[in-house]
């Protein structure tokens, strides 16, 4: 049943990487229809698919709806909207493409970003009769921000203009002017009717005046991505492995190339080291590697970089700055203001940053920029980020994959994309938010105290024994020379949190403050015991976000009956008699930890034994590592 090509021949077919092409445009300007038609006219559909589309269309009382091909999710078909980007491999005369279909609806901007971010070229679909609309401008702005410079404008539905040359050319001109404002060159402008296939894969006989290429001819002309191998070396460390007594530094080369014997500089510590070998498995031995490759190298001397460290050559260092100007596309539904803190993820590095200034905001109605106090929901702006430490980076340039970061919030959600522009000077009038980093290191503090800092978060019902245990453990640890502090719910509420009540929002704020205070104490090297009901998993997750990996959740677990019987503060009685409301366990939920670091069942055990268990758990957690001890 098959043509039997010799394998020597097939292995030479399609060797170039596929070219991603994103299709964007205002809702209802015909993107999905265009893709369906394109796949059909170029013979890229499997058997039976066309029949399936015709049947699906008929069932819904429509004439053949090419967009059904992509909108293969039931929910989308029923609503007629594309909810998420789809990637479809597509073959055109031996050249491979990946078509990315991005949704046009505003609220789905993040899906569009997901689809469009790695595209080489874009097809901007514009309804010739309607002209550019709000999403046309928004998408064009995005193409500009993510650095797509090869833009093909497809003026769709020209049948509605009766294929009239003057009208079509007027529409073309107005779109070109709009894109020019964004520094986006239009590579080509093609009048077409996707529904009927005019100028898609075959030349339309309705527009003899049009001499330019069809869409398929235009796609064939999209340039191949430029090689990043000739740029200066950038290898962000992804991870460090130790396998069988050998240490490997793993990462993907973002720019340039490296060879065995090269001397590289490691990150901000500026330690030099030599590439001793490039390790691999089931691959011919390598003495060099270039941009795009995922490698594992051994270093001489055997220094240990951290994830996020940037390896580069001595004479071609990246930019080093702690205040960075960046473009921003903002994905959150609420506005962004100066002073908000995030993590900037840049390749494999993660830096704590604060928005120090909003330099300008883009007005999406006319693409002009204005000085704004905030970046609106799903808006575009230029901002300045300030970090506590020096960040090594390269400004983003189209055709490179690094030099652009994402902002993540405390819940680890990606809330923005940030192509970096360059270092920022401190201008007069900027709100001077610039977190300072301490020169006393965590190791220094740990060595001086004989133990590391840590936070132990005791959660449980009122009366389960959190405060009692926290205090007895504090005493026991202090007697052994541990620098220990207790943050107790009632103590906090008497002072720092006395403005807060017991609504869910106030309880969350209470948890946030406790976690922030615990963080400061922990960073100063102390062992912190937090005794807080903290009934909601989401609140404890927030605490974990603030405190990071050094957060140990301790579940102080006593059943409700026991707690109610103990009732040391008379609160259960008050809740039962209706004197107080929203009391955890009575008329407000307690969500038990799923995977606590330590689970203490206090209904049965004695305070002495629980104290012992908790104290030894804490000592084990904060004890110095062998290396630190040896050096102290």
């Amino acid at each position, binding site marked *: 049943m098959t043509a039997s*090509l010799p394998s020597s021949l097939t292995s030479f077919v399609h060797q170039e990487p596929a070219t991603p092409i994103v299709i964007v445009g205002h809702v209802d300007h015909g993107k999905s229809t265009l893709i369906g038609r394109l796949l059909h006219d170029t013979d890229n559909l499997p*058997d039976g698919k066309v029949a399936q589309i015709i049947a699906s269309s008929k069932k819904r009382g429509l004439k053949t709806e090419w967009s059904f091909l992509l909108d293969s999710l039931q929910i989308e078909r029923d609503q007629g909207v594309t909810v998420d980007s789809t990637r479809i491999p597509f073959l055109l005369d031996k050249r491979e493409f990946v078509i990315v279909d991005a949704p046009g609806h505003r609220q789905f901007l993040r899906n569009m970003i*997901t689809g469009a971010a790695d595209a080489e070229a874009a097809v901007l679909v514009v309804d010739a009769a309607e002209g550019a609309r709000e999403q046309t401008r928004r998408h064009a702005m995005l193409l500009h921000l993510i650095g797509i410079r090869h833009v093909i404008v497809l003026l769709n539905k020209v049948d509605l203009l009766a294929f009239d040359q003057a009208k079509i050319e007027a529409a073309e001109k107005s779109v070109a002017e709009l894109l020019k404002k964004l520094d986006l060159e239009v590579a080509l402008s093609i009048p077409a009717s996707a529904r009927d296939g005019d100028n898609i894969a075959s030349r339309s006989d309705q527009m003899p005046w049009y001499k330019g290429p069809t869409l398929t001819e235009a796609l064939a002309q999209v340039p191949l991505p430029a090689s990043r191998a000739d740029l200066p070396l950038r290898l962000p460390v992804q991870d460090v492995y130790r396998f069988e007594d050998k240490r490997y530094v793993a990462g993907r080369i973002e720019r340039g190339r490296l060879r065995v014997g090269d001397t590289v500089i490691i990150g901000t510590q500026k330690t030099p080291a030599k590439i001793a070998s490039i390790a691999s498995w089931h691959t011919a031995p390598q003495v060099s590697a270039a941009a795009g490759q995922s490698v594992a190298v051994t270093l001489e001397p055997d220094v240990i970089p951290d994830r996020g460290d940037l390896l580069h050559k001595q004479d071609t260092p990246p930019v080093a700055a702690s205040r960075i100007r960046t473009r921003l596309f903002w994905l959150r539904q609420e506005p962004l203001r100066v002073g908000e803190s995030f993590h900037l993820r840049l390749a494999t590095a993660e830096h704590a940053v604060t928005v120090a200034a909003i330099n300008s905001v883009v007005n999406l109605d006319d693409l002009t920029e204005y000085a704004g106090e905030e970046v609106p929901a799903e808006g575009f702006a230029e901002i300045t980020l300030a970090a506590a430490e020096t960040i090594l980076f390269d400004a983003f340039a189209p055709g490179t994959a690094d030099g652009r970061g994402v902002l993540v919030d405390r819940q*680890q959600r990606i809330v923005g*994309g940030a192509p970096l522009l360059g270092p920022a000077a401190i201008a007069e009038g900027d709100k001077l938010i610039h977190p300072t980093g301490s020169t006393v290191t965590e190791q220094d503090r740990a060595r001086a105290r004989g133990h590391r800092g840590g936070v132990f978060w005791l959660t449980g019902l009122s009366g389960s024994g959190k405060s009692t245990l926290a205090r007895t453990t504090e005493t026991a640890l202090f007697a052994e020379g541990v620098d220990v502090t207790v943050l107790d719910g009632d103590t906090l509420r008497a002072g720092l949190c006395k403005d807060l009540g017991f609504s869910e929002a106030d309880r969350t704020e209470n948890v946030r403050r406790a976690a922030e205070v615990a963080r400061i104490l922990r960073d100063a090297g102390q062992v912190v015991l937090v005794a807080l009901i903290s009934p909601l*998993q989401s609140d404890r997750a927030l605490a974990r976000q603030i405190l990071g990996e050094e957060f140990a959740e301790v579940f102080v677990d006593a059943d409700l009956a026991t707690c109610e019987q103990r009732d040391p503060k008379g609160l259960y009685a008050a809740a039962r008699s209706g004197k107080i409301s929203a009391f955890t366990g009575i008329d407000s939920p307690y969500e038990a930890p*799923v995977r606590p670091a330590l689970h203490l069942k206090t209904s049965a055990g004695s305070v002495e034994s629980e104290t012992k268990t908790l104290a030894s758990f804490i000592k084990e957690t904060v004890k110095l590592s062998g290396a630190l001890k040896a050096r102290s």
Partner: protein
Amino acid sequence: MDHLDQLEAQSVFILREAYRKLKPLAMLWSLGKDSNVMVWLAKKAFLGRVPFPVMHVDTGKKFPEMYAFRDEYSKKWELDLLLGTCPPVEEMDPSLPPAARSAARKTAGLAAMIETHKLQGVIAGIRRDEQGTRAKERVFSPRGASHKWDIRNQPPEFWDQYATPHEEGMHIRVHPLLSWREIDIWRYIEREGIPLVDLYFAKNGKRYRSLGDQDITSPVESNASTLAEVIAELETTRTSERSGRAMDHESEDAFERLRVAGYL
């Protein structure tokens, strides 16, 4: 770098991200061609070893050749193999069509393994070109405590920055083969010499293009009995890869319903 080199480098990057960010982590090994490629890529990423367990969620209804393959290669590849079982079909949603209902057993078996081993990351070998709903997937796809796939509320994913778990009880499905196509898999198998169950090669005019449970998978007509012949066949074929998988075709949305509930 050619196309396969690029795909390999990207998959290695993804596997290393998963290993760094998600603990505990495990890889699903269905014994099929894609998951063998995935094990191979893990060995590339971690210099000859797979530093996390490999799980086979066993429906008990696979082909005997597949079990023989599992026993042979779990040893040869030095895999830390975890076996899971699936509940009987009677316990599955009776409103699903018969084959989808049978396939749902695997979802339940997988959910139990994720629970038992408290997994934060599960690496699975799905590809975008297999099926419309899989084309919508993320490389790192977060699942809530109920393991449901919230297709309407997927996180943004771009510039190789992936979602991380931020709530207790949630896990991430990691898809290192998402950008691979069927023919890439075969060309890579040929290039690397990756072993396969021989059910993929034609005998008596039939071969399996995709392997699942014995009772809901059917072979396709083919005379392709070598790797080169399979590749040549795929370059000209016009039928879809999963045409032999019964649960994909029972009703328009049967497969989507399976996936939303946590199927791969």
